Structure formats: C-alpha cells, structure tokens
C-alpha cells in the first residue's frame, strides 16, 4: 500500500481484499465496542473543505476506536479563496505533525496536490468529481456481507455518473474483481468515455435495461451543486431514471439496492424502495466505520 490512500484506481486487488477482510473483524458489536490501542498516540486530522456529516463522523469514530486522537478541521472557504487557504493550510498542518490527514475537497486532485507537498499520508475522503475510495470499499464490504463474492455479479450504477466520485471509485473497484458493470443516466451525465475508464463497463440510457438481471443496484444522488449548466431536463429525471418498485422485478431475485446518501426521495429513488427490505442503505452506513478502521490501521498500524 502506498503512503496514503488517494484512490481505488491505483490499488491492487490483493490490497483491496486485505482491507475488506480486516474490516470484517471490526464489523460486529458496534454498540459495546471496546476501544483498541492499535493507533495509540497517533493524531489523525480530518480536513474537510466540503460539508459532510456522515463521512467525517465515520472517520472520527474509526480513529477513536483504534485509540488515535482525531481532530476535525472544517474550512468553509467562503471568504478566502479555497486555493489560498489550501496552500496556507499546508504549512500549518506540517507544523502540527499529524500521523495522517483525512481530506475532503471540492476540487478533483486536491489530495494529490497535498500529497505532493507533504510527507504525511493523505487519505482521500472524496475529491471533487474524482474518487471517494472509502465509500467504494464500504460498498464492496456491504455487498460481500450479502453475497459470497464479487466475481460474476452484475452491478447497475444509475444516475449522475460523470459528476460522481462514488461511481468512479466503485467502477475501479468492481472492475478489478471482474464485475459486469452497467452505467445508466441521462446522456449528458454519462459520456461514452466512462465505458473506457476500466474493463467490463457498459453504458445504457434505459433504466429497465440497466436493472435487468442486476444483482446490485447502486443509485446515485443527483448532485445539483455540481451541475454547471442545465445539462438535462430535471423535470423528467424521476420518470426516466428514478428507481421505483416496478423496476425491481427486472433484477435478479434478492437484488440489493444501495445508495451512498444522502437520499433525495422522489428524485432518484422512490421512498418505498429506499425503505424496503432490499435496501442495504443502512448496512452501508454501519460498514463505513469498520472499513475506515481497516484503512487507518493499514496505513498507520
């Protein structure tokens, strides 16, 4: 494993398997969990330039459960340009000598920039529209809790793919395990190049076609904050790309519905699907802590 975790793309299958296996050890007994001292005396800085409740909290809990100290810095970046604050932050952070930095930023590649200039492991907690590696790891952990292996599965990823760091990390991860990946969304949010970023990826603009025979259906949030233009007619989005009960019959029996959250009910997913038995959305949240513990341990342990 490299010094930090910038993305899934550069990880080997073996490295991913090691993290997923270790995460399993950290999974159960979340409410009577004993604090470990694997990372005792270590300091982990959570540097969030973009609002995030669940990812930041999840990293904090993971760090504390391993016995590390966790400090969270949330930069709003409203008054100062974010560029200036990032460079300024560089020196401040270096002086604090943290053991690792967990970073979320609205710019793709921002953690790579930091990693080039700091001798401290950087863990990418989501960079712009690029990657969100720990989300893909916890998604894989969630699937593996319900299926014996990833090989041979068909996974449909539906929504605003081009702006989704969750989609990219999942595509890179699932592709390494020979998963048959189908991407579906409005054409301007699903450029044909996406089928070429990893092996085993297909594209369709028809949600029924995407869901047919799927073992896993990953719904993505429509990220209105990342739309720089009216790239698709928003009014008809749910009609053509929203997941509804009627679609589930097309999937393989017992298909799993996933969503990285937060959910827009009635926009990309119908409420009754989100709340149904097939939904693994809450399992995803629970696995977040376990996977992040495994990642922190692997980088710092």
């Amino acid at each position, binding site marked *: 494993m490299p010094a930090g975790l910038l993305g899934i793309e550069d990880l080997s299958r073996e490295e991913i398997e090691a993290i997923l296996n270790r995460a399993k050890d950290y999974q159960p007994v979340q409410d009577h969990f004993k604090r470990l001292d694997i990372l005792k005396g270590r300091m982990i800085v959570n540097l969030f330039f973009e609002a995030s409740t669940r990812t930041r909290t999840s990293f904090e809990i993971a760090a504390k459960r391993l016995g590390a100290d966790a400090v969270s810095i949330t930069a709003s970046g409203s008054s100062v340009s*974010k*560029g*200036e604050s990032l*460079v300024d932050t560089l020196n401040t952070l270096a002086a604090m000598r943290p053991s690792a930095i967990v970073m979320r930023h609205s710019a793709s*590649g921002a953690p790579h920039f930091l990693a080039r200039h700091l001798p401290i492991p950087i863990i990418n907690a989501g960079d712009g529209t690029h990657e969100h590696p720990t989300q893909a790891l916890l998604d894989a952990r969630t699937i593996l809790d319900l299926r014996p292996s990833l090989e041979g599965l068909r996974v449909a990823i539906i929504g605003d793919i081009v702006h989704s760091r969750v989609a990219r990390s999942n595509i890179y991860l699932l592709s390494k395990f020979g998963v048959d990946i189908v991407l579906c969304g409005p054409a301007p949010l699903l450029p044909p*190049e996406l089928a070429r970023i990893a092996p085993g990826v297909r594209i369709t603009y028809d949600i029924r076609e995407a869901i047919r025979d799927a073992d896993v259906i990953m719904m993505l949030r429509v990220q209105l904050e990342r739309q720089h*233009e009216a790239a698709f007619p928003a009014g008809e989005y749910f009609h053509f790309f929203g997941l509804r009960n009627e679609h589930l019959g097309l999937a393989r029996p017992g298909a799993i519905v996933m969503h990285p959250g937060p959910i827009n009910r009635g926009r990309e997913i119908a409420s009754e699907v989100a709340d149904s038995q097939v939904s693994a959305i809450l399992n995803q949240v629970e696995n977040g802590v376990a996977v992040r513990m495994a990642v922190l341990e692997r980088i710092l342990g």
Partner: protein
Amino acid sequence: MPGLLIKHGRVIDPASGRDERADVLIRDGLIEAVGQGLDGSAEVFDARGLVVAPGFIDMHVHLREPGFEHAETIETGCRAAAAGGFTSVCPMPNTSPVNDNPTVTSYIVERASRHAVVNVFPIGAITKDSAGETLAEMGSMKRAGVAAVSDDGRPVMNARVMRRALETAKAFGLPVIQHCEDLNLSAGGDMHEGVESTRLGLRGIPSSSEEVIVARDLLLAEYTGAQYHVAHISTRRSIEMVAQARSRGLAVTCEVTPHHMSLADEDMPPYDSNYKMRPPLRSRGDVAAVVDAIAAGVVDAIATDHAPHAGSEKMQEYERCPFGIIGLETALGVALQVLYHSGRIPLTRLVELFTVGPARILKLDRGRLAPGAAGDVTVFDPDLEWTYDLDKSFSKSRNTPWEGTAFRGGPVATIVDGVVVWRRD
C-alpha cells in the same frame, strides 16, 4: 564596431536554399556577406560543428509587461528568449492594460528598446480590452509598431465582430491571429475532454471547441479575403480544415507549439498544473496529426506560447491554476527531438519553421541570411547534450513540464544586430 565574423559553421538559410559550410560577416548590425573564406577585421566566432541560422522568431509569447511584472517582464522574457535562440519575439496583447491602442503599443516598444536583448514586435488587440465587442484602433497600432492583431486567450466570439475585424485588418495589411476556442463549449474545462479527463474527474475542453471556431473563421476569411492565422493549432480536424483552405488558395496559416507536438493528455502526471494550458494537451492521435501536418508543410511556424505564471499561482488545486507554460528556453530542444532526430523533417525545414515561416506571416524583414538583412543569427548544435535546469532559467516563472529533461540539441549562441546577446557557458 569591429564587426562579427562567424566562421566555419554549417549555414542554413531556408529563404535562399543555402545549406553549406560558410562564413557570415556582420557589420554595423547588418549582414555584410555570406560565403566561403570570408576575412576582414572582425571579432571571430568559431562555429565549427555548429549550425548557423537566421535569428529565430517566436511569433507567440506573453511577456506580462505591463501589468503582471511579478510573473515576467520584457527584460526577463527577452533574456529567456535569447537563451532559447530567439532573436525576435511577438508579445500578445493580454497585458494590463490590454495592448489595444497606440499608447500601450508605444510603451511596449519603448520599454523593449531599453531593456530587451532581442527584437520585440508587439501584437495588438482585435477588440477594445479584448472584450470582443468594439474594434481596437488597428491602424494607429500598426503605425506604433504592431505586427498583427489578436485577442489571444479571449477569442472573438461574435461572428459579426470577427467579420469586421478581418475586413479592417485586411485594409491595414495586418494578419489576424485567432486563439480558436468556443468559450461556451469549453466553459469550465481544465484539460482535453477524453478518457483521461473522465478518469481524473476533471471537466473537459472538447476538440470541437477549437474546431467550430476554425471552421467559422475560415468561412469568414474566405468571405473577406483577409489574412488569417490559427494560433497553437491542436486538433486533427482543425489541421484538416486549414489544409483544405490552403489548397483552395486562402491566405491562411497556422503555428504549432512545442508542447502540442510532443505531449498528449495522458502524459500528464496526475493533476500536475505544469501540463495545464489552452488549448489543452490533446489525444495521442492529435499529437501525431500535428507532427504529420508539420512534415506535410501545412504548418508555417513553431511558436512557444510562452506563458509565465508566478509560482504561487500554480501552487493551487489543479482546477484553480491558471493556464499556460513557459517555453522559450526549451523550444528548440523539443522541436529537434520530435521533428529532426525522429527523422520526420530535415534541418532546413526545421529552421524554416523558426525563421522565414513566421517572418512571412508577419511580413517582417527578418529570418534570412542575405547581405543587407538584419544581423540576427542563431547558432545551434543539433546534437548537444544538455539538461534543462530551471534554477538557471532567465524567466521569472517556473511553470514548465520540462524541468530536468535531457535534450539532444539546443542553442549555443544568439546574435541580435551583430551583437552576441547570449552564449551557452
């Protein structure tokens, strides 16, 4: 002045077709004679084993003065030019204030006469403030010394304004240089739109954003009969359209930068802003098309688009970094590698792209080694082994992808008006 006698070099002068061992005698700033066994009371420059060429002309640079002197000045930019073998440079008008009137033009000419070690032929704006609306004072700027007009970096979006600009420039005998980019198609883009941009999660600048403007402008150039030049051409289709226009006899020319002939989008280390410029590094296929076009004679000039940015401006997240790289000191090294050592073009053709090629476009009385011509000479060694070291750069900026690159071939001495203004130590 005693004069300068450059002896025993391989004299390559594409304008006259000369390529032979000969001497060049410069006196009073002008070339007095070119021939074998020249003598006379003059300082001797031994050019044995070296190529002696007309002074190189870079028709596309940014010297950042006035307005952005923290990144470059006329003085530092011209020193970098000299160290790259250039004896003349043409600074684009996107200074602050914009070079859109004769006062700014005169200021630049005046500053250059005092501080520049090479010739400076400014390029004026097409429209006031390069805002794309009202035509700039082209006639007065020409009198003040501009060699062409361009709204480089802020291309003329309004087709009607472009039409009027072409008509006006034609009447004043000025070429119109366009940075071809439809700003609506490219809005927000940070790199070439393709698999790489998709992989990295960066917004794309599609090839079509260049091509729709090339297509539009070629139609307007034909309609108006004006002289039109495509700056830093970067895509296969743009080249096809320019080639077709030329075959139909239009007064259309184009230039290629060292980076667009050598680097593709996939060569960029992840999010390295030293690879970020407009037009962006295109696909491998586009790079091949650019090199093919040079070999086929469709390209008239190599121009660097030397675009200095202060270090702090490039020390940001990729999407916030400004566009552009410096290129004066590495241009010849890159061009020799990509075009000559690869066997794609002979040395004469390479020299042509740096000399008479741009001189013809801008109607400059430069770029040739004939008695009576300006005493501008570039001496280079096509096989010299050297490594680019930014710490020795004359530019005030450091934004280049070629730091630490080992080159085969590079400039050895730069002579302007008979004076050696730079010499490799």
